[in-house]
């Protein structure tokens, strides 16, 4: 049994296609779940999570497995997509009150969001092979959390693509994000209506293979 088992493991290791685990990171409300849903919908026909205008809607990491993305050159990459909770340096329940959430529920939501950030950081340390970092292109890219997270991702030597999201909005300026992070590929995209989503897929095939 020992020899056949070892042989089987070697053969499966040789012929099994490696699946890269790609984490979608970014601050709350950057469009991470919208992107995860779009990728899963376009390439596997499933939906990953629910979206909302309320920050920290995603409070647990959600994984969509074994998605194969094929580029225009015929090359492909097989990935697991991990949609992570929004990363931030401060969580305040008062933020949720503005959306009509009751105080007690808001406090619970804040606690879950805090646990979610810790979980997202755990995944980044233990289980992630590459990162799509989402930034809302209508906002200042020099936010503390963006600087910190890009620094952390760089220090862990993970390949990263920055998605400058929400270019469907009139005040989106993806060039500001390019200027802020010239060392990384920046892809302007609208995950909501799919504008330039193909460019992101091309970059993923190129970057995460």
């Amino acid at each position, binding site marked *: 049994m020992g020899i056949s088992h070892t042989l089987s493991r070697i053969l499966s290791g040789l012929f099994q296609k490696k699946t890269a685990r790609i984490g979608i990171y970014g601050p709350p409300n950057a469009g991470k779940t919208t992107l995860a849903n779009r990728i899963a919908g376009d390439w596997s026909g499933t939906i990953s999570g629910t979206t909302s205008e309320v920050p920290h809607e995603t409070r647990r990491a959600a994984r969509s497995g074994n998605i194969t993305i094929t580029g225009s050159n015929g090359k492909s990459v097989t990935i697991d997509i991990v949609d992570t909770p929004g990363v931030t340096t401060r969580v305040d329940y008062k933020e949720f009150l503005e959306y009509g959430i009751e105080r007690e529920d808001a406090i619970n939501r804040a606690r879950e969001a*805090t646990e979610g950030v810790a979980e997202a950081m*755990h995944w980044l340390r233990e289980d992630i092979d590459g990162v799509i970092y989402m930034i809302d292109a209508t906002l200042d890219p020099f936010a503390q959390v963006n600087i910190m997270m890009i620094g*952390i991702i760089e220090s862990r030597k993970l390949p990263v693509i920055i998605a400058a999201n929400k270019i469907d909005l009139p005040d989106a300026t993806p060039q500001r994000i390019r200027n802020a992070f010239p060392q990384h590929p920046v892809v302007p995209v609208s995950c909501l209506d799919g504008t330039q989503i193909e460019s992101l897929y091309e970059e993923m095939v190129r970057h995460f293979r």
Partner: protein
Amino acid sequence: MPHRCTGCNTLFPDARYLKDGCPVCGCGKFIYEKGKGRKETRAEPDSKPLEPETPRKISDDKNTDVKKEISKDTQESDSLESIRILEPGRYDLNLSRLIESDDRVVRLGSEDSYRLDLHSMIRQKRKK
């Protein structure tokens, strides 16, 4: 919250120099000193740096292991806690600490009070 500079051993009654470094020697590493400097902080709101004390050998301290751990933590990042609970529902998150390990050191409000999640620390060690 008193902190001692690891470069020149100067004790500061609060954490105001953690970010910019020690004004005496420029060193950026500090050790949290439990139970020291609180009196000075209240007596002198301007909180001038206290006189440097004669360096003590670590082995003189009763809680040698605890101090080693704190020193190690401060070398890795400038603050001890991974999560600070300001009040129920309001949290400050130290991303640099959270990426280092699953160990949870939680600071409560502005008090010098910490809670250690021993379960998270045991889980980490088992994994190793």
